């Protein structure tokens, strides 16, 4: 789209030459001989940029700058003047001018400053747009978080209030025990959300991450399997690992990696089918160590895969309806892998299973050790 520029100067010769230079450079240019008509022009045209002389009879250039930046802070103002002093330049910029061009100036100088100003405008507009988007996301995010925390509390409150309101009836007597059990479970759900939330903020703030060092994945994976063996056995799920004989060291933080693989393992068990299988495999590939955690579970519908790693996102489906989760586990996994300089991906087939693949930067014994030595010196 053609950019439009308004030039305000009481010197007709300047107006003519500036108009000529800028029109030739492909801009739509309109010129005004005084501040008042210039401001009217700005209101009407809403230009991308205004070139204004500081010294004019009537409304001064400073006043024009002031009014234009009040009207629309994204209009770029370039000041031209034959009486340039540091003081006036500073004042004009304080009022919202973008830059200052002392007279006389060459056509090149004018073109350069105008183009730079327009680039600046694009940047301003872009960041303004991003800010609005972030704000919107934040608003939605707060709604999401509070909803997620309130849902179990509402359920608990409603059970307790119902027991209180209905008093002792055969109906409440038969349900009381079951409802209390549900209240306890939902209480645990709130606690789990808060715990995961804390983990997530710790990863985010970097306080969960210690030094990035050489870590062998094998003991971490074996520990994770051992820690979840009971849970797997309860659901009749077999845990298996295909671990290489050699060490496959990565660059990372032990605590973070333990949280990462625990989350993936717990998911693989939870969203599995009865008598299902969870298999973990590790292999080296292009300076990366790739760990795959595969389940034989319900799978993830394709439309959900994109949002899967978002905070508080949970796949809703007939089979996942009964499974409790905080909606933060995979968000934590994503944060951790990103923090360690790695990636996490998912492959999934409905009713066949899902595979989560984590790639982490491999530790190169020689090069990385030298670097570690250097940084500790």
């Amino acid at each position, binding site marked *: 789209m053609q950019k439009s520029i308004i030039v305000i100067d009481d010197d007709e010769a300047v107006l003519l030459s500036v108009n000529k230079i800028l029109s030739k450079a492909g801009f739509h240019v309109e010129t005004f001989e005084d501040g008042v008509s210039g401001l009217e022009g700005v209101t009407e045209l809403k230009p991308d940029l205004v070139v204004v002389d500081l010294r004019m009879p009537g409304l001064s250039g400073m006043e024009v700058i002031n009014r234009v930046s009040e009207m629309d802070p994204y209009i770029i103002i370039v000041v031209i003047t034959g009486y340039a002093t540091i003081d006036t330049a500073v004042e004009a910029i304080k009022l919202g001018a973008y830059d200052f061009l002392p007279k006389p100036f060459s056509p090149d100088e004018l073109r350069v400053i105008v183009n730079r100003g327009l680039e600046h405008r694009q940047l301003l507009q872009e960041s303004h747009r991003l800010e609005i988007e972030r704000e*919107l*996301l934040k*608003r*939605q995010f707060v*709604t*999401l978080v*509070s*909803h997620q925390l*309130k*849902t179990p*509390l*509402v*359920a*608990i*409150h*409603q*059970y307790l*209030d*119902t027991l209180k*309101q*209905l008093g002792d*009836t055969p*109906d*409440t007597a038969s*349900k009381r025990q079951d*409802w209390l059990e*549900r209240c306890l479970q*939902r209480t645990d759900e709130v606690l789990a959300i808060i715990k995961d939330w804390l983990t997530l903020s710790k990863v985010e703030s970097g306080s969960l991450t210690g030094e990035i060092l050489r870590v062998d994945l094998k003991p971490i994976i074996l520990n994770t399997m051992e820690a979840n063996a009971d849970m797997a056995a309860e659901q009749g799920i077999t845990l298996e690992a295909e671990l290489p004989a050699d060490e496959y060291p990565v660059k990372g933080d032990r605590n973070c990696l333990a949280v990462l693989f625990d989350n993936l393992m717990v998911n693989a068990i939870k969203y599995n089918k009865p008598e299902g299988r969870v298999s973990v495999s590790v292999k080296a590939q292009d300076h990366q160590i790739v760990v795959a955690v595969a389940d034989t579970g319900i799978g993830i519908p394709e439309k959900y895969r994109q949002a899967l790693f978002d905070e508080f996102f949970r796949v*809703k489906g007939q089979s996942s*309806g009964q499974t409790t989760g905080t909606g933060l586990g995979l968000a934590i996994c994503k944060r951790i892998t990103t923090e360690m300089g790695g990636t996490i991906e998912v492959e999934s087939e409905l009713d066949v299973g899902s595979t989560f693949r984590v790639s982490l930067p491999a530790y190169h014994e020689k090069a990385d050790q030298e670097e570690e030595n250097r940084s500790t010196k």
Partner: protein
Amino acid sequence: MTSKSKILLIDDDRDFLASVRSVLESHGYTVVEAETGKDGLQKLIEHKPDVIILDIMMESLTEGYSVNYAIKHLDDYKEYKRTPIIMVSSIESSPDERFPISDGYVDVISPNYYMNKPLDIPAFLDVLEKVIQE
């Protein structure tokens, strides 16, 4: 207890459904449950309830609004257009407010009544009675 009105409860939280069902049944209402908006619309046609209690955030952030819209504006449900809807949610925004979604804004189509969760049981029963008498 002379009331024999049929209530359709649409909410994705099974615990919420269980307790509210007990309250309603103990006051003589018949209850039909649905755990998704889609299921709710199907049960609406199957059971022809007198009142609908509708949650807002279910599978999507605005699922309740979509269900409300469908019942009030789509031809498929025109027979049930006048079935009163009581919207319930724990998000503290009145349904008149614009509700933010990721790709812009949706206009919220007002339900007949709106109540905050957790439901104040006596107030909820009052509203229900009032709605049915209307």
